[in-house]
């Protein structure tokens, strides 16, 4: 074993880690508004909107993320001239939005029916009732699972190394190819992922306690 390979190549690994965090965060930020819209669509009174929102969720959840990434990079990316960076972000964002849609739907449905009735009976439109009464309450319930989704994204984002985004995983792969120190490099890469996700999951636990809904 020769662990000196780690400090020597730390700058590359650090920039790989930053790339991992960056694409995960940007993907999350894109997936939240999409997820909210799809989640609202899932409970829409319009059956056509409900059908397409349901189809979107089922389809995305039924396709492996790796296949989705490759498809966006090689098929969609060719027409839209997406580089690997944006192909990776959109792949992760679309994938994550389907999960967020389900979280949003469950959060809204967990708000008691009487809340919508009270809001509508005071003359609010459906959209006003959603914005002023339902979503603020649902948001408390969905904040912790949304933060948990960020952790899942960080782990899932290691797949973007296959479409040549230089994230932490691809830096590890490249280092092993040049230094042949696979034990040291992969152990360290695994540890870095663990430390980041563990710290974040402690944060999620804090959020869960803080936003426990008091009825």
């Amino acid at each position: 074993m020769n662990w000196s390979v780690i400090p020597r190549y730390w700058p590359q690994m650090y920039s790989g880690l930053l790339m991992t965090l960056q694409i995960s965060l940007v993907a999350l930020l894109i997936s939240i508004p999409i997820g909210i819209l799809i989640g609202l669509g899932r409970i829409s009174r319009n059956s056509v909107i409900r059908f397409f929102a349901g189809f979107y969720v089922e389809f995305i959840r039924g396709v492996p993320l790796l296949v989705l990434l490759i498809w966006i990079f090689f098929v969609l990316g060719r027409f839209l001239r997406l580089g690997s960076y944006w192909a990776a972000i959109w792949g992760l964002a679309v994938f994550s939005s389907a999960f967020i849609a389900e979280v949003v739907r469950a959060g809204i449905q967990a708000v008691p029916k009487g809340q919508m009735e009270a809001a509508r009976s005071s003359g609010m439109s459906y959209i006003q009732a959603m914005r002023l009464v339902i979503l603020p309450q649902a948001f408390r319930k969905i904040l912790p699972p949304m933060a948990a989704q960020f952790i899942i994204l960080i782990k899932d984002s290691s797949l973007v190394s296959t479409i040549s985004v230089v994230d932490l995983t691809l830096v590890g792969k490249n280092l092993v190819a040049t230094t042949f120190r696979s034990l040291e490099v992969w152990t360290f890469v695994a540890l870095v992922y663990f430390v980041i996700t563990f710290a974040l999951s402690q944060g999620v636990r804090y959020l869960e306690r803080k936003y426990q809904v008091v009825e």
Partner: protein
Amino acid sequence: MEAMISVQTVNKSFGSFEVLKDVDVQVPKGQVFALIGPSGAGKSTLIRTINALEGIDSGAILVDGVSVHAKKAKVNQIRAGIGFVFQSFNLYPHLNAVDNVAVAPMHVKGTKKAAAREKAKELLASLGLDDKFAAHPNQLSGGQQQRVAIARALAMDPKVMLFDEPTSALDPEMIKEVLDAIRKLAETGMTMVVVTHEMGFAREICSQVVFMADSKVVEQAPPKEFFSAPTTQRGQDFLEKVLHH
């Protein structure tokens, strides 16, 4: 005199179960109607059709001359003029008492925030809640929550007020404070319909008692007449059960 609330031959079914059969009720302006009867008689459904929380299958309902269930009815605008108080309060748990009351005037009527909050405080104070402005619903007792809910309904300056079993979810010692609030409101000349199991209250403050059973209006009379001598067998049976237990 034209009725403030006019329910005209209304029919409604949930699936194969008829909840309202040819219901006719006329509530003149400024009068308080008690809607009583055994559970499952259709009282709550009827009061919920008046502000279109429930649809109807046939017939018509007019509130201040405006048809509530017409195809082109401006439901939001109609509802803004009808105060509704629920059995389970349904206050907004994420807002304090003042904001619970002020939110609809601000967003439905376009009242300025400061004015809406000022009025909310006046209403809450008039209902004996002047020390609860900043309290969230979970910090209030049931009786206090229901009084906030009454203030919330009044904040829209409604033409009529509907109460759907306003005291049924309350502990016994809190029933009086809510009934007193409703009584005070009756004295101001507000047109009201109250679904209630409080017979003493119905007798004391209501101008008419509407007795429903089996999805129909069985009889309607001033409380003195109804409670001393109901004209129908159904009414006599009901009174026997609720008054002599």
